[in-house]
């Protein structure tokens, strides 16, 4: 630095003790081993919306499973004398036009709605995953065939198709509603799964396993499916809410669950006749429906953030 020649720069060497040299490529043992799923769990745990939505979902599931714990009044014990009556002791939300307890009907109606949602989601996910995985993995004719069939179903709007099918079904129960909904909804999951499988199929670890002598089907089960399932989980969580809405829509139109089965859709449908005189009986089942759907959407959102591989950086 005493050198006045402006272009010269001295040969600087940092004090050795400033940056002690670690051995080359040593394994960092300070942190606990983490799998992708453990990482996802960690990311979800930090989000308040995860706790809010899961608390609500757990509550809704308990209500659906044991409605008797939450409502002492029978929802079918209706007195016309109480028609459109306001809230009173033991009946916090008042009465419907038939004189049934609104609170009690919401509690007991949860079962049918949640059952349709869960059943339809399970059916759609299982068929969609199997069909999508096989089509994407084996390709060729199977892929073309399955994809075109899927396109045909994809082209039919779910609710419209369900209206047609439901109107010819001899029996209408939560199970049949779920079945009809899933007939029109599986192509979406199958498409997502197929796309994910296509990209996982071409990854190096699949080639490595092939060269190690692992059988083709085993690679599909052990490597391809676990690496493609994340987007399906996200969509499935979100679609659970939409199935509950679809059931309500069908019931509202009078071709979902029969009037004898208590469901939010039916209650909303029946409440529309007294929307001017007594709007609150429309409001409460709708609110229950909205809260349920929102909880699932919120959970789906959190799950997507946690599982999104692009959001998680390589460490």
């Amino acid at each position, binding site marked *: 630095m005493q050198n006045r020649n402006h272009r010269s720069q001295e040969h600087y060497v940092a004090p050795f003790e400033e940056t002690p040299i670690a051995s080359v490529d040593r394994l960092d043992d300070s942190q606990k081993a983490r799998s992708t799923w453990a990482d996802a769990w960690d990311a979800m745990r930090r989000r308040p919306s995860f706790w809010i939505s899961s608390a609500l979902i757990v509550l809704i599931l308990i209500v659906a499973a044991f409605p008797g714990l939450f409502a002492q009044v029978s929802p079918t014990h209706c007195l016309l004398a109480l028609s459109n009556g306001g809230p009173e002791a033991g009946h916090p939300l008042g009465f419907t036009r038939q004189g049934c307890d609104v609170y009690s009907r919401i509690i007991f109606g949860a079962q049918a709605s949640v059952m349709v949602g869960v059943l339809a989601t399970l059916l759609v996910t299982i068929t969609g995953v199997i069909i999508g995985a096989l089509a994407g993995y084996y390709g060729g004719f199977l892929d073309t065939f399955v994809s075109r069939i899927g396109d045909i179903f994809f082209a039919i709007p779910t609710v419209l198709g369900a209206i047609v099918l439901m109107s010819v079904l001899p029996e209408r129960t939560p199970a049949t509603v779920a079945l009809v909904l899933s007939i029109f909804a599986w192509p979406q999951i199958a498409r997502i799964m197929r796309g994910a499988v296509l990209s996982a199929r071409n990854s190096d670890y699949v080639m490595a396993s092939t060269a190690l002598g692992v059988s083709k089907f*085993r690679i599909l089960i*052990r490597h391809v499916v676990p690496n493609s399932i994340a987007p399906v989980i996200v969509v499935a969580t979100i679609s659970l809410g939409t199935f509950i809405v679809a059931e309500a829509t069908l019931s509202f139109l009078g071709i979902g669950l029969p009037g004898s089965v208590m469901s939010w859709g039916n209650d909303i449908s029946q409440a529309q006749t007294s929307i001017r005189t007594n709007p609150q009986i429309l409001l409460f089942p709708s609110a229950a429906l909205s809260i349920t759907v929102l909880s699932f959407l919120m959970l789906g959102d959190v799950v997507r953030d946690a599982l999104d591989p692009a959001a998680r950086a390589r460490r």
Partner: protein
Amino acid sequence: MTLLLNETEGQQVDSSNTPLLQIRNLEVGFRTQRGMVPAVRGVDITLYAGQTLAIVGESGSGKTTTAQSIIDLLPGTGQVTGGQILFEGRDLTKLSPKEIQDVRGRLIGYVPQDPMSNLNPVWNIGFQVEEAIRANNVAQGKDVRLRAIQVLQEAGLSDAADRLKQYPHQFSGGMRQRVLIGIGLSARPKLLIADEPTSALDVTVQRQILDHLGTLTRDYGTSVLFITHDLGLAAERAEQLVVMYKGKVVESGPSQEILANPKHPYTQRLVSAAPSLASRRIQSAKSGSADTAIFGGGSLDATLIERAAEREEAAPTKDLISVQSVSKTYRIRQQGLKYNELRAVDDVSFGIQRGTTTAIVGESGSGKSTVAKMILQLESVTSGRIEFDGQDVAGLKGAELLKFRRRVQPVFQDPYGSLDPQYNVGNTIAEPLLAHRVGTAKERQARVLELLDQVSLPASTRYRYPSELSGGQRQRIAVARALALKPDVLVLDEAVSALDVLVQGQVLNLLTELQSELGLTYLFITHDLAVVRLIADNVCVMKKGKIIEAATTDEVFDAPKQSYTQELLAAIPGGNFEFGRQ
């Protein structure tokens, strides 16, 4: 260093004595869930007008982060937490986003690392060059187009006017990099930051690009800040050198002086691991004039010398793998029903003896990886014959194929892609054992531990997931997995290309040790001649699907017969530079 800075500050009146760029005590951190993680910790860099400076270091050393913070291009959660970046006396860290936008491109140009992803595929080249010209107010109206043509001409592209209408996919990697350099220099910036500008390119292309970049910057008096991991490149192309380690500068000064006489232990270690150079030393050791002192007692070199000695004793035996006039043709669909034939591998023949290492060298598109895949039976052979241990491997099925797979194992290039992210290391290594139904669960567990030990990783590694391991550690896991079934042959497809020099040396050392221990045969596919010199006995040089030269490593390196091989050897950056080893 501080003294120097204080002094230059006092001289600011004299502009020729003022550095163009002065980074003082720069601190950069990344916000994470666990708080601020420092990436750059107090870095000082001085660069004068017209000088070329290279920052070298391994991945994670903070070299790219330092460069990015100069023009405020830090990704995501990164931010400058302290220090100054003085450019012509102005502190860039204090500028508003609008002011820094004016500096970017006009005063400081940037050439990104990956030419494949840094041009927008939906716009033609002309649009992208013109965009840069307009953004920096270099020209207006009709002049923009003329200037764009001029920029491409300067970047060394022929028929620049016609090329403006072409799209990035019609350009080769080298041409795209020329476009990016042209864009970076379009506004005649005073400083050009080039982040690994040629590391994705073949050596011969790299040489052309660097020569051209050198000429351009010399003509305009542009200062260049190179970010590189390649010491040879730094020695050849940069006057000044900054060595970074763990976010700090460990050594800086004139590059030739540092590389000839490294003072800091880290620089010394880096210099002695640079493979292009070590290979020459091993050669001298082989021919009997070994001076072990120059190796600094490094186990890498010692083992390699021993291996070399053993090799010469080995008596010729029958080839374990014999490739006989093998070709591979791909059909590429043209418009409609027409097909074009692409001959990826053209009449290739060679043999590999048991216990030896054969390297196939070539630039991208030479067909070297296709040869490896055909030997591994991951691709079918169009014509010709591949024999393994006297048996034709084409058309092996069922149990026979499984038996073949047990004996010939691959290790792939990308240490990030070849391990399933969902499986922990223990399960990954045990997979081949499970697939071939070897042993009980307990025996498999024991074998996993034994393999981890062979690749020098602690037993606790088996509970970890690939995302927690470094590239080198992953590649060692991949080697362990390949060794699980006690194969005869390992096919290593660019297995060390993605690794930092130090880690690369470590893995090569491991491979050499394993070879002598287990009597393995290696087929080594690589584009890196320096690595070949380190571990191969025989070399096949491939170009456009054909083997143009095949001989022992010594013959190929000392007396290359083909002009293409000579060209490849000459293009290694810093190949003739005498590095100082202890």
